[in-house]
């Protein structure tokens, strides 16, 4: 491996890195894909789902590809405002999402990433597993100028390449080392833990009101991480459920919350318990998500180097994996152009940055910034919205002996007692925006 030279070396075989490698290999570029795990996906975690529309652009009609480890096609998406023994539920079920071209598929990353990396290998990329890239190699291009020219592996081997694509995930060690990304603060990341629980397919379908192969996802706010801001969630896989809980790290750390304790408590909630009853836990995992948002987007390109996916903090609301794939694709296109010109300087690779800036998710991230600032200032919003909505629910649906008018007044009074109405209104508005309802 010592003297090998490639058109590109990709650090990290997750969705971003594999997409970049796959696309470049299809363009007949030589690609080395470096993965620190024993196999791709073995350290990765998602809620979660892959989005069909973006993924179809990379692998058209991917659901027809042999052996693809898709779990279920999501037809039902719900958001629950969960309180101690009640829930306000919002949701949508659409049969069309159960038919090609679909909307989302649940996946388990330890299966999916491995399969996906195989597609890149088949296209001609070279995968090196159990290989940790510890530093970048630079090449002098002038008296004061240098470009990134490859990576150094633990043990000292060097892989040279015209361009290095960093797809190293949330921790982003090399991206930080290269000075492209600033250190995140604990209020700029979320920490999630997850359990996978086995349950026979028929029981999942009965329980979640699904036809064969259909899937459901339920996001829940309020109770799961109260008194902090965070989320719980349940996704249906083929014959297992994914259950996650997590929230902003500063709140978990500052409010004395233990992630596994939160997970246990969430699983014990009366409305959650009935969904996972009889399911056997088989996996436990945890991971951070960079939530620095728009203002913390790293420098995306420099001479000979491009940053994609979580390393580039390409997270917008609930979306991360598809943005990873899209940025991987963008990077591959820019590298192909650079190779055609045989020029790898920042101004050439900047076409990647332009693609990102012209994308829908960049617009979304830009819009999301004020919500984040708000949540940093008002850490209790989720909890308060949930509380208020559930109190409202109990009152609204209660068949009592008072007049409608006096009931309405009572409800208003309780709402006003909790906090100023204007704040409640803001909480609801920003909350719904944050959770992707608006």
């Amino acid at each position, binding site marked *: 491996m010592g003297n090998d030279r490639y058109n590109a070396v990709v650090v990290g075989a997750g969705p971003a890195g594999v997409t970049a490698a796959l696309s470049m290999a299809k363009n007949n570029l030589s690609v080395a894909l470096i993965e*620190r*795990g*024993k196999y791709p*996906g*073995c*350290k*990765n*975690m998602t809620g979660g789902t892959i989005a069909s529309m973006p993924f179809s652009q990379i692998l058209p009609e991917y659901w027809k590809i042999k052996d693809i480890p898709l779990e279920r096609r999501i037809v039902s998406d719900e958001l629950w405002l969960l309180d*101690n023994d009640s829930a306000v539920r919002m949701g949508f079920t659409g049969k069309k999402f159960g038919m090609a071209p679909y909307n989302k598929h649940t996946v388990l*990353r*330890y299966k999916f990433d491995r399969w996906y990396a195989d597609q890149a290998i088949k296209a001609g990329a070279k995968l090196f*597993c*159990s*290989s*940790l890239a510890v530093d970048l190699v630079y090449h002098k291009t002038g008296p004061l100028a240098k470009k990134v020219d490859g990576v150094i*592996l*633990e043990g000292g081997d060097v892989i040279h390449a015209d361009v290095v694509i960093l797809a190293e995930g*949330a*921790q982003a*060690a090399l991206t930080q080392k290269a000075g492209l990304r600033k*250190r*995140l*603060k*604990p209020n700029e*990341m979320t*920490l999630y*833990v997850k*359990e996978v629980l086995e349950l026979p397919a028929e029981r999942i379908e009965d329980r979640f009101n699904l036809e064969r192969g259909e899937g459901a996802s339920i996001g829940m706010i309020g*109770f799961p991480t*109260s*008194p902090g801001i965070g989320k719980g969630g349940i996704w249906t896989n083929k014959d297992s459920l994914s259950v996650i809980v997590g929230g902003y*790290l*500063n709140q*978990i*750390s*500052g409010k*004395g*919350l*233990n*992630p*596994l*304790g939160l997970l*246990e*408590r969430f699983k014990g909630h009366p409305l959650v318990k009935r969904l996972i009853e009889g399911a056997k*836990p*088989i*996996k*436990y*995992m*945890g*991971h*951070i998500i960079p939530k620095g948002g728009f203002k913390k987007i790293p420098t995306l390109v420099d001479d000979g180097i491009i940053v994609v996916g979580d390393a580039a903090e390409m997270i917008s609301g609930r979306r991360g994996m598809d943005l990873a794939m899209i940025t991987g694709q963008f990077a591959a296109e820019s590298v192909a152009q650079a190779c055609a010109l045989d020029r790898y300087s920042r101004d050439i690779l900047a076409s990647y940055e332009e693609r990102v800036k012209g994308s829908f998710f960049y617009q979304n991230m830009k819009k999301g910034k004020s919500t984040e600032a708000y949540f940093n200032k008002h850490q209790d919003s989720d909890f308060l919205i949930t509380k208020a909505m559930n109190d409202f629910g109990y009152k609204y649906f209660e068949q009592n002996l008072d007049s409608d008018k006096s009931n309405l007044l009572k409800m208003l009074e309780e709402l006003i007692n909790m906090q100023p109405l204007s704040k409640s209104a803001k909480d609801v508005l920003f909350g719904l925006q944050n959770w992707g309802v608006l």
Partner: protein
Amino acid sequence: MGYFNKTQRDPLELVTIIPDEKPHIFIKKDSVCIKECENKPCTFYCPSRVYYWEDDSIKVLYERCIECGACPYGCPYDNIAWQFPGGGFGVVY
């Protein structure tokens, strides 16, 4: 909702980890944990219970790490140095 205790369940009963021979997590300055850090949040925010407090210092069981990435950021004193374990080592989901 009030304070609740850490669960007694062992987080690692469902996890496979191949520990590296050398540690990949270090406490930068023990004195910071003793003198400045009152609540020792690493002992509860870590999802796999890598950290515990014993005899006036934080002990680090790096073999228990599931590489979630939270610890260097969650420490209020930036007192944890964390790096990736060697290639092929660490957690295998």
